[in-house]
């Protein structure tokens, strides 16, 4: 069976959930091989994790020459890996978690390999037909790569991770990074502070606040914590400096597709919808009965979020005991 390269999503060797989703999807297309860009001494631990989701091989690509520069070296490394794989037993597809960085890697890789590219897939079926959600979630599009090796970036929450035993054979891969790929240097990195809450794009429940919070996110955060949810924000809340940009949901922030999305004090502008419209269940609290967000909701409360949310938080805690 042909190989499917799956780029592992991780933070310093800590494998993230989208990796398992991608491995699950990859098994529909061929034999998954996970690609780990990172420190070689973390390779074995990572392999142990990904082989539970069907990774037959784990390419460990030492990122010493890669991590100091933006995007281009990763694209070169994947090109070399893809060429090796094609020459060996055939390459069915390359899957990457759909982050901004990986979309850029995928774009460069597509040109290098002469392959078609599909970004932001929310599903990939057997045969490689992808589903995308476009125009702020108003349309779904079925598409297929028709030239070269399909390169597909896949959004978080696109599949339920299913375990399957893989061999997880570790193979060190040394990429040759050209000087031309080392021209955009990462001069400084400032890690974001951990919040202790689930990651926005991976969470099963997201509770968001907008301008209607008036800058006080306590009710929103309290309710989120009672549900074990991630916290999100509208751009208005981010632009006001109430929440960091990393929490923004929408066209120019994160796209989330949780089981439950709770919008509080958010009007429901098209650019906000673009980031949350595909949530399975949508709930809103807004004091304006005419707010457009109510057109989307499964359940809505017309009321002040600063009274509704704290009361609801207490009741959730009561029920959970």
């Amino acid at each position, binding site marked *: 069976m042909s190989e499917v390269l799956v780029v592992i999503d991780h933070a310093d060797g800590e494998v993230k959930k989208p990796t398992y989703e991608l491995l699950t999807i990859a098994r529909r297309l061929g034999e998954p091989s996970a690609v780990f860009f990172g420190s070689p001494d973390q390779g074995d631990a990572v392999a142990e994790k990904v082989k539970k989701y069907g990774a037959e091989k784990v390419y460990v690509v030492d990122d010493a020459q890669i991590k100091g520069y*933006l995007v*281009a070296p990763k*694209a070169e490394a994947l090109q070399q890996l893809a060429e090796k794989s094609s020459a060996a037993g055939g390459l069915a597809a390359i899957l990457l978690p759909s982050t*901004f*960085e990986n*979309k*850029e*890697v*995928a*774009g*460069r890789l*597509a*040109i290098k390999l002469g*392959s*078609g*590219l599909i*970004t*932001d897939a929310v599903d990939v079926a057997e045969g490689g037909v992808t589903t995308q959600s*476009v125009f702020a979630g*108003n*349309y*779904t*599009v*079925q*598409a*297929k*790569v028709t*030239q*070269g090796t399909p390169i597909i970036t896949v959004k978080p929450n696109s599949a339920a991770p299913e375990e399957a035993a893989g061999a997880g054979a570790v193979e060190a891969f040394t990429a040759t990074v050209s000087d031309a790929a080392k*021209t*955009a*240097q*990462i*001069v400084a*990195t400032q*890690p*974001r502070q951990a919040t202790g809450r689930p990651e926005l794009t991976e969470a099963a429940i997201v509770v968001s606040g907008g301008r209607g919070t008036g800058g006080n996110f306590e009710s929103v955060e309290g309710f989120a914590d009672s*549900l074990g949810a991630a916290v999100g924000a509208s751009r208005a809340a981010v632009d006001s400096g109430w929440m960091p*940009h990393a929490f923004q949901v929408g*066209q*120019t922030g994160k796209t989330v597709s949780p089981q*439950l999305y709770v919008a509080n004090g958010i009007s429901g502008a098209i650019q906000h919808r673009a980031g949350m*419209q595909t949530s399975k269940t*949508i*709930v809103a*609290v807004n004091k304006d*009965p005419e707010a457009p967000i*109510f057109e989307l*909701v*499964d*359940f809505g*409360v*017309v*009321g002040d979020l600063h009274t*509704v949310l704290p*009361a609801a938080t207490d*009741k*959730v805690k009561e*029920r*959970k005991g």
Partner: protein
Amino acid sequence: MNIVVCVKYVPDATADRKFEDDYTVDRVGVDGLLSELDEYAVEQALQFREKREGEDIEITALTVGPEKAVDAVRKALQMGADKGVHVVDDAIAGSDYIATSLVLAKAIEKVGADLVVCGMASTDASGSVVPAMLAERLGMPQVTLASVIESQGDQVRIKRDNEGSTEVIGATLPIVLSVTDQSGEARYPSFKGIMAAKKKPLDTFSLSDLGVDAGQVGLSVAWSQVEDTTERPPRTAGEIVTDEDGSGADALVGFLASKKFI
């Protein structure tokens, strides 16, 4: 110094966007405009020049798109760009990222650029891939998704929000830069700017002007093909309650429990 700003003409996001029978984006039946996210690119190009008083800097606004796409260039000229380039050719219709980036790269080479500025994404395709592809094709450093841009001489530094961190990226001109909507509000064209734009040079190029073979672009040779599009069924109206003396919280928690979220 030459700056080229890539501006895309897109269907208005607040209108009912739809597809043609061949599954390409309807760019004619729906009102279009300069992509809002490319206004930030024009703004940063203008600010780049404004910070370099006394230097001879020319800003060219470039678009690849149908007849009406020239509106995107006009808006950029009104904001303050010096000249416009519109690449239009029937053969380009339905092009994918690969072909679009090819045509853009050829046009940029023709104009000549020390700095290429793009938006963070087009508001219709929202791929965020064209700037990276341009860097690949032009062999320039890729300095993308900037929220803060600083430069001195031929050195450029930007701030970029990544998944788990904020990074500072440094590179030497010529570069491909893309900017986010965090980079600062774009200016409105002034009355003077609108009048001045009418006299600014605007070149129209076809594929042959750029030396691009028509067989390399367009829908029929796209490396990915759309097989179907479906309009999402409107969400069925949900239940809306009005909070009175705590009834809202009760109803909300009741709903969440009924859906097994608690």
